[in-house]
């Protein structure tokens, strides 16, 4: 065990974090029951995946941790190819393969 962090402290963090994270995930789904959401909320919620997930990864694309936050042409190109192929082919697997091939080819060449 690390000299600085005591066992009870770690378990406290685990349990509180476990409960808190569950409540976050349960929040709307569990508490709203079967009530209808207002139509303007429904309209916004339709855009949750296309807003949250790209915004989650955008900083990882532009400032990758692996390069110490430096712009990396290989990762930028791989992300660009993934999006382009996904838009064009509408295929998730195709987009993953195209992005991975681009990334490895460019990392290999550099």
């Amino acid at each position, binding site marked *: *065990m*690390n000299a*600085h*962090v005591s*066992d009870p402290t*770690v*378990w406290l*963090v*685990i349990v*509180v*974090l*476990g409960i808190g*994270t569950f409540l*976050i*995930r*349960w*929040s*709307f*789904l*569990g508490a*709203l029951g*079967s009530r*209808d*959401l207002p139509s303007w*909320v*429904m*309209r*916004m*919620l*339709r*855009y*949750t*995946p*296309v*807003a*949250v*997930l*790209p*915004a*989650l*990864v*955008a*900083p*990882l694309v*532009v400032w*990758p941790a*692996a390069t110490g936050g430096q712009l990396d042409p290989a*990762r930028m190109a791989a*992300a660009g190819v*993934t999006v*382009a192929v*996904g838009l064009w082919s509408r295929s*998730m*697997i195709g*987009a*993953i393969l195209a*992005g991975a091939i681009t*990334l*490895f080819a460019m*990392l290999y060449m550099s």
Partner: protein
Amino acid sequence: MSPTPEPRPAPRQPRADDGPARTVREMFMRGATRSLPFLIVMIPFSVLFGVVATEAGLDVAQVMGFSVLVLAGASQFTAVQLLSDNASVIIVILSCLAVNLRMAMYSASLVPWLRGATGPQKAWIAYALVDQSYAMSIQEYEAHPRLPLAQRLAFFAGVAVVVCLPWMIGSGLGATAGRAIPDDIALDFAMPITFLAMIAPMLRTPAHLAACFVAVAGSLVLAGLPSGLGLLIAAPVGMATGAFVEAWSEHRMRA
């Protein structure tokens, strides 16, 4: 637009393989098999968590405690990092909860699709609601809007089993075997590529494109803010943009 009780997917013809014909069992298998590509990322990432957490001084039970009770990769790494930096417990907890707050948006976004589920079913969904299970399921629900509830739940369960169990097993392996994986295979980038590949086919309308563009621009501009905060501002602004563009183009079509 008129307030519709059913989720209103963007105009798109259901494909020939549309869901209603599938059994619950088939939907579970479909969710499971479609999630298999995640394992390429998930297994090394979970082993890495076990290794990193063990190096930070956690024992196997604590590593498993994190992966079973918290079950949220990014916040688990954040917690271990902060704990080994001797941050105070309250800082650790608040930072990690901030990292996980985006899941409240997932929870809200699933309401129209899963509202008919029972209390215990919703509790299980909440437990297993991670980035991957959310992204996979919402993509399926939008592509096949007429799937019955039982099939939607079965699909989610199939995804959740493939995504969550290996995470727990992998972190246990990392904690016990404790062999560092080579860091020169660019695994850091598997997650961004997977998510971009899932989202790109969902960008069907100008409203979707606008939502995505504004959210991405916002998250880059706000990247300097502490853990997860930028996303919590950028994503709702992007969602509002999408809703606005949708309302505007409907208005224009009617005019």
